[in-house]
């Protein structure tokens, strides 16, 4: 086996505990796996192709050439350099291939180095890592959804348009809003969509405003999106109860403020009880309210954002509506809009007509049907594969089941809050119950022990860590969102583990600094990775030559 020039060899890890080493570097079910570029796959392939028969257009595929073909007729004679304009690829690309058994084994072995919801509780606050029902996966793979082209004539995709339209209307029912843009590809893309609607609405009334207000506790995407949409970002402070400081907000509102971006429930896991008053104040100042819908799982079926004066809110289908996170996407971020913003929503969208048919409203008919549209955000119609999953989820739960989702999510979070508040500092617990996530600080930890140490020790206990150091308004924050798909027994095991670790943290147990010790890897050197980035595999230089892989990256 060749090894990467970083110098690591699977068989030679130093181990402090002096554990018995294996010659392979494997430890029973914990299996090491090289990169595909380190396997001998230069001339291999795991795909067989049909033989191409001469004269039928199915010429032989030998040597990767285009194969013998009928002589082109006069009608198709190329004028220069053949049909490929003289640009045939000659140099090797450097793409190794594996046979099917090798490919399946490679990725199966890699998969086993991942933690996942299917393996255990995944308490990432504000990420809503709930169970992903497998019916959703089955439905998304039905040929009528999976094998349909986005540019097929509309009479051939009525079922797809009906799915989009049905989901759109149910999202409106659930949020009490007026319109919805289905095409945004993810939550942050939805934020962008919402802010562009706001900007278009302001411009339509000739009102140039330059500032977006964002609470300190907001997700990083909020200020980044506002900046990407061309706004200057200003922070608004939180009060001692972890909520938006209404008076400070009111004092800052003025003719230069375009929008306020609020997360509700907020990232401390608390509902903003003044939400309606905030909305009224923002509207009175001529601005709009954007709500980050990341935490919608806490209130789905219980409260409608439209009743709180919200003008735009994205819905992460991969959070509340259980579409898989997939290791970091694809997401899906439809945006619900108030009556004031709906005229400016993007193209395209699916609309139902009085004849019962569905049509796509895009550039061609937008002039008649949706003249205020701010434009197009994506090439096609959004994340159809996520719409089918989300619609399946909503159908499974129904109105009654969705309200139960919110109730159980909030119940589970409060159970965790209550079960841990004697061993971890819960800064807002005195103020009352939390919503779907419970927040703790590192107050009370012995010197030298930090939130990250507790989180990494949780890995050794078989759990994914909680969200850490976010929101920024709580010192050493630990944000725990258990979700409604955890049983009481699962929560009990989790809180038992965290209690034991919290005691060690309070006692100053320095062994926490070494955690995790049982994971496929110990703590990784992120500083090295950033200082000397190695972002792709470089074939090792011959023996004895200088290590060529580590190159300083410029452009700072």
């Amino acid at each position, binding site marked *: 086996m060749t090894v990467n020039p970083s110098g690591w060899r699977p068989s030679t890890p130093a181990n402090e505990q002096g554990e018995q080493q294996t010659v392979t570097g494997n430890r029973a079910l914990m299996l090491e796996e090289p990169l595909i570029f380190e396997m001998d796959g230069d001339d*291999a*392939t*795991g*795909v067989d*192709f049909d033989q191409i028969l001469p004269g039928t257009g199915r010429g032989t595929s030998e040597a990767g050439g285009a*194969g013998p073909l*009928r002589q082109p007729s006069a*009608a*198709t004679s190329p*004028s220069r350099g053949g049909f*490929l304009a003289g*640009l*045939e690829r*000659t140099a*090797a690309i*450097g793409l190794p*291939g594996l046979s*099917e058994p090798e*490919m399946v084994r490679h*990725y199966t072995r890699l998969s*086993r180095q991942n*933690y996942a919801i299917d393996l255990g509780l*995944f308490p990432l606050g504000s990420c809503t890592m709930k169970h992903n029902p497998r019916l959703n996966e089955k*439905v998304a*793979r*039905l040929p009528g959804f999976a*094998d*349909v082209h*986005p*540019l097929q004539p509309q009479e051939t995709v009525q*079922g797809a348009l009906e*799915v989009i339209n049905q989901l759109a209307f149910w999202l409106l*029912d659930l949020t009490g809003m007026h319109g919805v843009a289905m095409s945004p590809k993810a*939550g942050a893309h939805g934020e962008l969509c919402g802010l562009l609607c706001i900007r278009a609405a302001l411009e339509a009334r000739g009102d140039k405003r330059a500032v977006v207000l964002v609470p300190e506790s907001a*997700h990083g995407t909020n200020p980044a999106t506002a*900046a990407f949409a061309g706004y200057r970002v200003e922070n608004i402070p939180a009060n001692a109860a972890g909520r938006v400081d209404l008076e400070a907000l009111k004092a800052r509102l003025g003719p230069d403020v375009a929008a306020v971006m609020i997360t509700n429930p907020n990232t401390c896991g608390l509902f903003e*009880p003044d*939400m*309606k008053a905030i909305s009224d104040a923002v509207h009175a100042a001529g601005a709009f309210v954007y709500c980050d819908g990341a935490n919608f799982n806490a209130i789905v079926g*219980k*409260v409608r954002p439209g009743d709180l004066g919200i003008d735009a809110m994205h819905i992460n289908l991969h959070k509340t509506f259980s579409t898989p996170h997939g*290791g970091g996407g*694809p997401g899906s971020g439809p945006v619900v809009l108030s009556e004031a913003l709906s005229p400016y929503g993007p193209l395209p969208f699916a609309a139902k007509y009085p004849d019962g048919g569905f049509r796509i409203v895009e550039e061609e008919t937008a002039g008649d049907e949706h003249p205020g549209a701010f*434009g197009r955000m994506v090439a*096609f*119609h959004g994340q159809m594969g996520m719409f089918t999953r989300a619609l399946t989820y*909503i*159908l499974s*739960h129904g109105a*009654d089941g969705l309200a139960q989702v919110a109730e159980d999510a909030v*119940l589970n979070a409060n159970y965790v809050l209550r079960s841990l508040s004697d061993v971890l500092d819960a800064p807002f617990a005195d103020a009352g119950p939390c919503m779907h996530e419970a927040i703790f600080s590192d107050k009370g930890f012995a010197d030298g022990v930090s939130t990250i140490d507790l989180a990494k020790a949780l890995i050794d206990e078989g759990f994914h860590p909680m969200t850490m150091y976010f929101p920024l308004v709580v010192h050493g924050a630990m944000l725990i969102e258990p979700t409604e798909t955890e049983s009481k027994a*699962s929560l009990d095991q989790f809180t038992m583990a965290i209690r034991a670790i919290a005691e060690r943290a309070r006692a100053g147990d320095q062994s926490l600094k070494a955690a995790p010790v049982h*994971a*496929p890897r110990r703590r990784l*050197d992120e500083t*090295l*990775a950033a200082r000397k980035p190695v*972002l792709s*595999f470089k074939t090792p230089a011959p023996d004895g030559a200088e290590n060529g892989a580590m190159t300083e990256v410029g*452009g700072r």
Partner: protein
Amino acid sequence: MRYLPLSDADRSEMLQIIGAGSIDELFKDVPEEARLTGPIHGLPMHASELAVERHMSALSRKNMVAGDVPFFLGCGAYRHHVPASVDHIIQRGEFLTSYTPYQPEIAQGTLQMMFEFQTQVARLLGCEVANASMYDGSTAMWEAIVMAHRITRRGKTIVSSGVHPHYVGVATTMAKFTEDDLRTALPGLTAEPDTERLLGAIDGETSAVVVQYPDILGRITDLTPIAEAAHAAGALLIAVVTEPVALGLIKSPGEMGADIVVGEGQSIGVGLQFGGPYVGLFACREKHVRQMPGRLAGETVDAEGKRGFVLTLSTREQHIRREKATSNICTSSVLCALAWTAHMTLLGEKGLRQLAALNHARAREAADRLAAIPGVRLVNDSFFNEFTLELPVEARPAVHAMVEKGVLGGVSLGRLYPGEDKLKNGLVIAVTETVTDEDIAALEAALKEVVR
């Protein structure tokens, strides 16, 4: 409810431990007048798995399935055969139900896969580095334009008329808000792309030139002179690839001097899915990596010196930099990237070249036969697996008429460029390895009838 493990007994016990008299007490921060008292209006009640499956299957049957008919659509989404093992891998729960790998000790599977994906993408596109994916090709192209703006500190971008009109639409929408100056044009039904126009338009204020390769009409053009002219003026060349299988047969944009190469990765490993989710490809020169948007996996070592991978250079990203980030992007398309990388690993270079050759051979065969129909003209003198025909009649009604005959016979330029008289007779035909001789014969027969 089958997805909710708590029993009523659990709920009462937990409420008691919490010290709440009822679940409503936990919602006390929600103003009374905003709280809903019963099940939300408009939605049905919960349903069994069987009932839901029945309902969704019925909806799915209202669509014409590409695999059931002679099928020739492309223009940014391509129907290729995806090996069964690819779908099996992406349904492994450890990939499907994992999160963004912020905890690298228990996410090496995703991180190593990302590193492999980045390497494969960079090599295929002919660049030094690639990121771990974007939402799709159209958003990747816009991100490339703003990245070039950051690098050159110039705001004018010249967009080739051969770029997918929806991609241009996305960029035009965004440019309205960022005040970037985009110079766009409509394509003509000619064999020659608009290289001369691009060369004439590049000046000292140009940030970037954007060229699609192969372009929306399927044409292939040498990017080298465009790259040279752009570089001479201090501008960058952005190349857009919507059919990456082509790069198994033709030179990569990077080899021809493109500085940023973006693309739609759907055609490898990811099904059509009515337009999404897809997987945006994004690659560039190493010296520009700190201006690149999106996630990056990088190599490092752990506390025992073992090689491992982490998300890196995150100081570019929103969760660290907030309003100063290079992009607001907070997700990539990792599961689709996994499908892409697993399919590419099955293919290998050998398989990719065979696949590309097969596509090209099939397309040549189809072009030959369709161009022989009286009145039909092949616009291209270069193409990979997609070409444009000029019909003697308007193409859009022709496409609908072919549907009546059970043939999905390409994308009309009338659909892509509504209201443009000069383009209305254009029909773009994509031919992949999934197309059979019978399919081509069916298209030929249908087209003959509709142009008569």
